[in-house]
């Protein structure tokens, strides 16, 4: 493997990891407040199709991003209403949201299948992008890649260094105590769910506006699920999520690169690995006794009803 190839592979790994990063960041905040939203795949697909349609209709990819964020929030509000307001089971509602989003996105997107848009062009950062190897790997991406990193930094700061971060943590760890000191638990959770929806929409838009760029049914191909697993792998720590997203991007690129180099590993086996890891994590996350070891928010998945508190 020569240096050019390594550069290209790392560059591609960051690109492949970016949609995962968007979704995992949003879901991490959502889960930190105690809400587990398994509807990521559905919100992502809706973000992808609405983002693409908006960009196609207006000729402006910026409107695509905006549309994707809005539809992501609308989808998450459906989830939020059922789960937070009506106290529905979070796992079942999240699954329903995924199935709903998959079907609905295919339905409304059938008219734009096979259309093309220009999407975002790469934006090389002056000076920095001229550094050998690192310049190409880190500083020659499209604007969405930088946006993801910027959001990660802001989110890490807010979660760890601000009062808002403490509020989020309090709501996720012990909603009753948070309620007792006057925090509006449901409002915080609603906002977190909507933030997660907007981020999932962005992740989907990255697929349809930048990555391919085109829309086809079910084009996210399970990336929403992988992002969910990523949050758990990372123990809800923002720094780990960033690393994990790029690491997964690298893994999925390597399996194609190795094939091109003539390694005869069964591609089926390699393609399966991230999903196997996802299943294992999903099993662990649903078993209570492991939750604490993984530093999971203590009220994760449990409904909260302020009326029963009084």
């Amino acid at each position, binding site marked *: 493997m020569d240096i*050019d*190839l390594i550069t*290209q*592979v790392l560059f*591609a790994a960051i690109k*492949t990891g970016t949609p995962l990063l968007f979704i995992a960041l949003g879901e991490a905040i959502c889960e930190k407040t105690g809400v587990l939203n398994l509807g990521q795949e559905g919100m992502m697909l809706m973000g992808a199709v609405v983002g693409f349609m908006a960009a196609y209709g207006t000729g402006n990819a910026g409107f695509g991003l905006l549309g994707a964020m809005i539809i992501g929030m609308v989808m998450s509000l459906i989830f939020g209403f059922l789960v937070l307001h009506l106290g529905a089971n979070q796992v079942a509602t999240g699954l329903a949201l995924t*199935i*709903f989003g*998959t*079907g609905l996105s*295919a*339905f409304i997107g*059938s*008219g734009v*299948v*096979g259309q*093309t848009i220009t999407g975002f062009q790469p934006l090389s950062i002056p000076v920095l992008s001229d550094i050998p190897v690192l310049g190409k790997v880190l500083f020659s991406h499209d604007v969405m890649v930088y946006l993801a990193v910027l959001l990660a930094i802001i989110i890490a700061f807010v979660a760890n260094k601000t009062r808002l971060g403490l509020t989020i943590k309090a709501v996720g760890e012990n909603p009753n105590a948070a309620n007792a000191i006057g925090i509006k638990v449901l409002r915080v959770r609603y906002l977190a769910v909507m933030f997660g929806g907007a981020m999932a929409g962005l992740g989907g838009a990255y*697929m349809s506006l930048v*990555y*391919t*760029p*085109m829309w*086809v*049914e079910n*084009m*996210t*191909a399970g*990336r929403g699920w992988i992002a969910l697993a990523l949050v758990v792998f990372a123990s809800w720590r923002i720094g780990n999520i960033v690393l994990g997203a790029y690491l997964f991007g690298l893994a*999925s*690129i390597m399996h*194609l*690169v190795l*094939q*091109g*180099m*003539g390694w*005869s*590993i*069964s*591609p*089926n086996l390699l*393609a399966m690995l991230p999903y196997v890891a996802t299943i294992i994590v999903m099993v662990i996350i649903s078993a209570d006794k492991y939750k604490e070891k993984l530093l999971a928010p203590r009220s994760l998945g449990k409904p909260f009803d302020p009326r029963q508190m009084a």
Partner: protein
Amino acid sequence: MKLKSLLVGLGLLAGVATVQAADDPFKVGFVYVGPVGDLGWSYEHDRGRQELQEFFGDKVETTYVENVPEGADAQRVITQLAKAGNDLIFSTSFGFMNPTLKVAKRFPNVTFEHATGYKRSKNMGTYVLRTYEGRYVSGIAAGMLTESNTIGYIGSFPIPEVIRDINASYMAAKSVNPAVTMKIVWVNSWYDPGKETDAANALMDQGVDVLLQHTDSPAPLIAAEKRGARAIGQASDQSSFAPNAHVFSVRDDWAPYYIKVTQEVMDGTYEPKDFWGGFQEDMLSLASINDNLPKNVRAKIDETYDLINSGKFHPFTGPIKDNKGNIVVPEGHTLSDTELAQVNWYVEGITDEIPR
């Protein structure tokens, strides 16, 4: 995928609810695995259906059901189409083979035709494309156009059809460029634009400058266009996605066959067969050959097309050795259609192994 099934069911209701014309037209049903807007496989089948409709006008009434999952749903959809009074049903994906066969047994008065399969019965025939003819011409173009002497092939699944076409491409490229090597990447899907983009980029990262694909989305062409490489389109005319990178598309055309079989069944002369169609039957064509190709490349493409089209040349004529040194096609022998459907070796010179 409950919702998907529901949508399929609704689509079916909409499909069978067409008003019957007064003079009782001959009814033909189609079952597609993908959306008609995939701009690839299902799109071309639907184009065939539309041409069939246009050809016969009022005499024929066509319906289709798209996005039918391979498996139990398929059997239900095909049964519905048979019950709805269709006289002839085309099921257009390999995975519909067993469901079609089962329904064919229950409805002996309906004629069934299944694409790409190998099981037949007294009212069920099969039809398949000689895609290797198109691949051979693609290989010629790729071999002449590559400057790095490395061409790439994005494979879907390691089944005989794909392996056969990899061999045809490589033999062709080698015949015009003895120094050529081919890199093969499998994506395990017929249609995953994200994965196909990754695969195209992974190949180009390793020096590939001409891409061939056995997957259906235009994503590899878009990737090639971005990086100044070249690529050959699959199944339908994909030139609009990559005006510079696009060499030509090997386009499927099912209409001649759909018209022929419909006529036969109407006349009562139909016999179930194992039908293979290619250049000669106008079921494969080279669409939108790029004007920016060097003259000698264009001439060689035309010449190769003519040789195959006239039947003077068959890519799988011996002697052919596999990449382990065994003779797989002896001198003077040309693979029969049955043998073509069983190719499970890489030809000499491909430094790779078929994944198991």
